């Protein structure tokens, strides 16, 4: 078993490891109490996305995926955290407690249930498509991260974790995308990357405006418009 074969047999396992830790980071966004740690977990999640893209790029011998990985690292691991740090304002990140609608252990249980649910939805798809070993990990984990990001948005009351939840949803969709839609035209990938950047920019600026208007970014407490 020479080095090349060993590498090829280890690649699926490395990808699966990246997928497993990706799932863990999605759980982490639901459960972590401190704002700055949430942001770091998001950066780590984006790095894992890049790792998976590189592994798949090596496996498919496609430069395209390497470019995707480079885009991910540049935009999601560096630009977006910088944007979020500088638009929302430092004092919000010093918070050690984020208020939530549901307490953390229950949230974790619901998150586990969501992960199992997305696995159940993804299985018939994988069976019908005769999926390879990479899609088997990326699709369910991506879907789980998508749904967990949506859950994070509903459960957290602060602005920045909600932004991170939406960005995590996009991360999940891309994590699934690098394996199932790996040859999307480059224009689409570039535009999608810029799109995520604009999301972060817009939401960061809006959060800053909210902070200026009401003195804090607890958007879950803004209920003046609810009438029903």
């Amino acid at each position: 078993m020479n080095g090349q074969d060993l590498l090829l047999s280890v690649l699926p396992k490395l990808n699966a490891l990246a997928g497993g830790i990706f799932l863990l980071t999605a759980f982490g966004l639901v459960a972590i109490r401190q704002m700055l740690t949430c942001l770091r977990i998001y950066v780590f999640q984006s790095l894992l996305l890049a790792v998976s893209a590189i592994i798949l790029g090596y496996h498919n011998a496609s430069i395209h995926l390497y470019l995707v990985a480079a885009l991910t690292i540049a935009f999601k691991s560096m630009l977006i955290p910088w944007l979020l740090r500088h638009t929302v304002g430092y004092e919000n990140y010093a918070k050690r407690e984020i208020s939530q609608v549901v307490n953390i252990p229950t949230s974790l249980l619901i998150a586990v249930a969501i992960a199992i649910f997305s696995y159940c939805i993804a299985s018939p798809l994988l069976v019908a498509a005769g999926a390879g070993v990479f899609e088997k990990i990326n699709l369910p984990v991506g879907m789980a991260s998508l749904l967990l990001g949506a859950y994070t948005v509903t459960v957290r009351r602060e602005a920045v974790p909600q932004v991170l939840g939406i960005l995590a949803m996009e991360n999940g969709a891309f994590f699934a995308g690098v394996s199932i839609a790996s040859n999307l035209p480059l224009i689409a990938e570039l535009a999608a990357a810029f799109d995520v950047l604009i999301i972060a920019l817009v939401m960061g600026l809006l959060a800053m405006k909210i902070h200026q208007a009401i003195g804090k970014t607890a958007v879950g407490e803004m209920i003046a418009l609810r009438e029903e």
Partner: protein
Amino acid sequence: MELIFILIISSLAAALSLIRVGKRLAPGVTLLGTLAVFLLSWRAALSTAAGGEVIALRNWISCDSFSALILLLVAFVGLVAAIFSWGYIATTVEATDDRKIRRYYSRFNLFLLSMLAVPIFSHLALVWIAVELTTLLSVFLVSFESTPQALEAAWKYVVLTCMGAALALFGILLLYWGMSFSTQAAFTWTGLIAAAPKMPPVFLHTAFLFILVGFGTKVGLVPMHTWLPDAHSQAPSPICALLSGIETTTVLYCIMRLLPMFQNIATSYASRWFIIFGLISAGVAAFLLIQAKDYKRLFAFSTVENMGIILVAAGMGGYDAHFGAMLQIVSHAVTKSFCFFSAGITLLATGTRDIGAIRGLIRISPLAAIFLVLGGLGIAGAPPFAVFLSEFSILKAGIINGQYLVIGLLALFIVVAFFGIMYQINRMVFGSPDIILIEARTLFGRPIISRRKILPVTCIIALIITIIPVILFGIYLPEQLYQLLHHAASSLGRG
């Protein structure tokens, strides 16, 4: 080629609006830009009315009859909104705040650009990006007034619609994966229809559900509609017209484009979901209408209801129902813009959005009252307005098809909404003139000192221009428009 010009002109207008020269440059550039865009879209629509396609870049930028219809509507509402904005923004924003006015117009143009891009692009990934951009470029328009309520509305808007867009992205990626089962098809709407028979059904179903729920959030389908009444009422009135009249319509266009994919396989699957979501949206919105306290929210709920009606019509299947759906799209777009314009001048005349605070509008400002009543009648579906004709054709098509339960429920919801809208508007318009302001209200951050007796001329002009199609399409459909609707309806498939 027109299509590329449309995109270029709009972006140019956005850039030019930022130039710091005089007060009239920004609104003037916007007006000229939207006029040019409208003329170009008219040309494109005429080309497709004969049944052909306008192609700028094969598989990337092209328009068939359905997309040309949407393009025409976007351009029309954009034009009248630009005319309306001229007077509205000049009156409501402080005269010295030039920067704010310029920012409004550049954001207006960018927003319009993104909405124009949705029907123009035919590659699905680009369509998704355009839909996402319609949200992102309109957030700061929704929060234009910078009051806490406007900010709250903008936050809910951006969060919920971005969530929906991420779900839809996942669905689109699944479709892309499914396309790999058939060779050589391009990832466009027509390519999907060609590739659909070879995809495993579970792919189509799962992707369809993700896209329906995801884009449905942007359309305002219940239960994902919670952001819509807030965002569509807190924004300035011309922007409300853009949001309600065309933004929701363009995303609904994307959802309806999924229908032909199912025509060979399990047709009933997609149709069933359309009917379910459509009926629930129409019903919930009709009942929520009755207790609306703010007349812009009233119109926003009516948007949800109309989106539901269009979706039900698309789901019912058959050429007649699809024709009715297309007609409803047209009539809703022009009528809803008219309603929001009349709401805008009512706001200028009275200084409050609260229904309970206004009484006897007809004596306070007769012009505003007349337009408001016309708008209310129009959107509620009274003859001889356009919405009546389209709703009637939908109901007729349903009865011919034999779907009595669906039609019964739909008719019930339409009647409930009719009474809700007319009741609220009558409360405002008739009676002894009185405006009860509970607290010192502010309009755009300035306290109300005097209400405007003289409404801006351009607002009136915009209202008159908009009411022409509202009344016209209730009586007579021009031949070209009929052809356009005919081809658009057939493109939805036998259903």
